[in-house]
């Protein structure tokens, strides 16, 4: 036999999706894709705020302080007691925004997880098994995509009665269609790859092929999509709350705070500054993170 020296040189077309081990590589990715860094930091601060909300908040978010409103019911502006002012029934805006972070993240993340779960399951089944299964699932997906999403969610929340659980159930249960499409497309691509064919030739069952060979390779688009979904869902919750069918009081959510603020912003603009900023921060953070991840993970985006 030949005495070929085996040196493991890096092939120049390095597929940098995997095997991030060393710290150097992390830094490299962050340097090349600053959006991941910025978005990630923004999201990270939100997570910290959500976790440590009781420590950060200065007031009880649902207590109505008599000092918060004037004699004719006008909310008090920022002052030494309420640093970002009080709302129209005398609650501390700052503390509510802090606690609202929890709600927004909860809705954003849980709803996305539901969508992800349904979307990935259907997408994999549809893409992998093809034929009539695919036909049926894709028709349902088309149908879902034909619905004006917001309208549909509104109708469903109205049916389910607004509550935090129902909001994320409605958003999550209705929001899977796009995910299904993406995952299906990805599965169709991966399915034909030779390592999947090899696994088949080795006698692997469908279960093993799906879970061990295919799923790990659709993780990247799912993560990207999932991140973007969280941002979208946070916005959606706010929109629902703005229309009065989202998170119900006294629970604070940025959306219902904004709604409250919208009615009074001419005399109490501080009611929309902070929650609006928080909402922008969150959606921006998740969008940046998602976009960054996409640039990094999705080779079809030219760079």
């Amino acid at each position, binding site marked *: 036999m030949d005495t070929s020296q085996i040196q493991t040189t890096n092939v120049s077309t390095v597929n940098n999706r995997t095997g991030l081990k060393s710290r150097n590589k992390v830094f490299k990715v962050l340097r090349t894709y600053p959006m991941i860094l910025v978005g990630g930091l923004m999201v990270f601060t939100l997570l910290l705020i959500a976790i440590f909300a009781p420590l950060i908040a200065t007031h009880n978010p649902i207590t109505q302080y008599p000092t918060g409103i004037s004699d004719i019911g006008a909310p008090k502006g920022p002052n030494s007691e309420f640093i970002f002012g009080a709302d129209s029934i005398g609650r501390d805006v700052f503390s509510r925004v802090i606690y609202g972070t929890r709600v927004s993240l909860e809705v954003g993340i849980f709803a996305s997880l539901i969508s992800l779960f349904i979307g990935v399951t259907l997408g994999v089944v549809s893409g992998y098994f093809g034929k009539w299964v695919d036909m049926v699932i894709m028709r349902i997906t088309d149908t879902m995509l034909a619905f004006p999403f917001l309208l549909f969610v509104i109708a469903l929340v109205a049916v389910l009665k607004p509550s935090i659980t129902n909001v994320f159930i409605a958003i999550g249960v209705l929001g899977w269609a796009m995910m299904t499409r993406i995952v299906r497309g990805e599965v169709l691509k991966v399915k034909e790859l030779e390592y999947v064919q090899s696994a088949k030739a080795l006698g692997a069952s469908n279960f093993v092929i799906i879970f061990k060979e295919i799923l790990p390779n659709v993780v990247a688009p799912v993560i990207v999509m999932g991140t973007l979904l969280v941002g979208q869902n946070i916005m959606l919750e706010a929109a629902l709350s703005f229309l*009065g069918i989202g998170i119900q009081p006294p629970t604070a959510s940025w959306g219902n705070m904004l709604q409250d603020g919208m009615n009074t912003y001419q005399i109490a603009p501080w009611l929309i500054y902070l929650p609006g900023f928080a909402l922008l921060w969150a959606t921006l953070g998740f969008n940046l993170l998602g976009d960054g991840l996409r640039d990094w993970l999705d080779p079809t985006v030219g760079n």
Partner: protein
Amino acid sequence: TGTDSKGTTKGNDGEAVKGGKINIDMSADFSHLDPAMCYDFGCYEVVTQFYNMLVTYEPDSTKLVGSAAEEFNISDDGLTYTFKLKKGVKFHNGTEMTAQSFIDEFKRILDPEVGSPGKGFIDPLVIGSTDFSEGKAKEISGITAPDPYTLVIKITEPQGTFLNVLAMPFFPAIDKQYVDSIGNKEFDHKPMGTGPWKLKSYNTGKDMVLEKNADYFVAGFPKLDEITITFEKNAQSSALKFKQGDTAFIGWNQLIGSSDFIQFQQDSKYKDLLQSQTLVSTYYLALNNQVKPFDNKLVRQAVNMAIDKEKLVKLNNGRATATNQILPPDMPGYQKDLPAEVDYKFNKEKAKELLKEAGFADGFKTTMLTTSSDQATKEAQSIQSDLKEIGIDVEIRPLSGSSYSDGARSLKYGMVSTAWFQDYPDPSNFLDVLLNGSEVPANNWAAYNNPVVNDMLKKASTLSPGQERWAAFSEIQLEVLKDAPWVPLYTPVRYAIVQPWLKGFYQHPVWMDPLQNISVTKH
């Protein structure tokens, strides 16, 4: 007697201009334009512009005077009502109004096909109404027209408020031929009556244009040529439009938004343009008297004492006065000074004691149904936090439209935050309608059923309007308050803001606002 007279306005001194057009906003589209179907404040406002009832209220008072009727007469036994109609009154299409025009509307109200909510007001009270509605008779035997300008209505037992009932917008003159030609459903959005205004155009959900009825039977009215009503759901936008001088007034069932009201009040430019009117209405919290823990009187009293009504007034920007009883101040039978034992004053300590006594030292959990408007949720949250202080955990359940009323009727909720506005100025409209055991669950959302009270109500209803009747109802109210079935919260004060160049605007305590009285001055 003249039906319409000058309005009581303040500060509008300019010289009135003949004719002219104005724009106003309305917070929502009208539910119905068919008088037989209309039973809410919104549509009352507009239906009364197109139609004339037999009788109506004098401006700024609760006195009934003839409208389409020239004069009327009630027999001594209180069972026969005779109306002499005005002659030469024409519908907008030129047909003449006769007594039959009213009979036709009564028939429509009783017709199950139409499904009118006004039916209960005359069936079975009017003789022959039930037979007609069940299809056993072709005519309502109790309503006759001896001649085209005379209408006679006979009722089965004396009813002090029957004339008030007839003033409700259910019972105007209609042109049956017209209704038949377009059908009941079309009629609901193509109104045609004898009223001061004609419908010029109507874009559902968008706007409605009213046009002067030049042949209106009261000479000189209406004063304006045209009124454009825009449905503007956004209160702030409405306020901005008013500030820009685009709209003539905010009122007429359009509430001034909370922050806009504060702004108007704080701005000297607008402060003087505000007009106010205390409504004959009570906002209250109906406690479910039949279900634990509110079946316990002590608990109900505790809740009565736990709620800070002044805070609610504050949340209404002062556009309300706290109240301690069922009848509103402007309703006969109202008691200025309640006996101490039924005047539940705000007292958290006492409330806690009562709860303890009732066996709920640690409080309990309950639900509160409310409408989904911003103001309602604000107040609900205030009540929620008050009750929290005595240990009661309240879950707010805001519902809109008919899911709200269905919810209330289901008696599933511990508390319902609601309000009642008078249909007519008589205490029975509150005590009988809202607290009679026979009204559970239709209107009696507190599920309050006290045989003693029911009995007293039956007796009082036959009394004709006057001191005796008012006293009887005062007594009933005291009896009710002992049981504390409700928490009376406040009496609303309605504010309107009117451009300085507008003349003739006023707010009426019952419901009809005087669009035909309004005119503009040079500006």
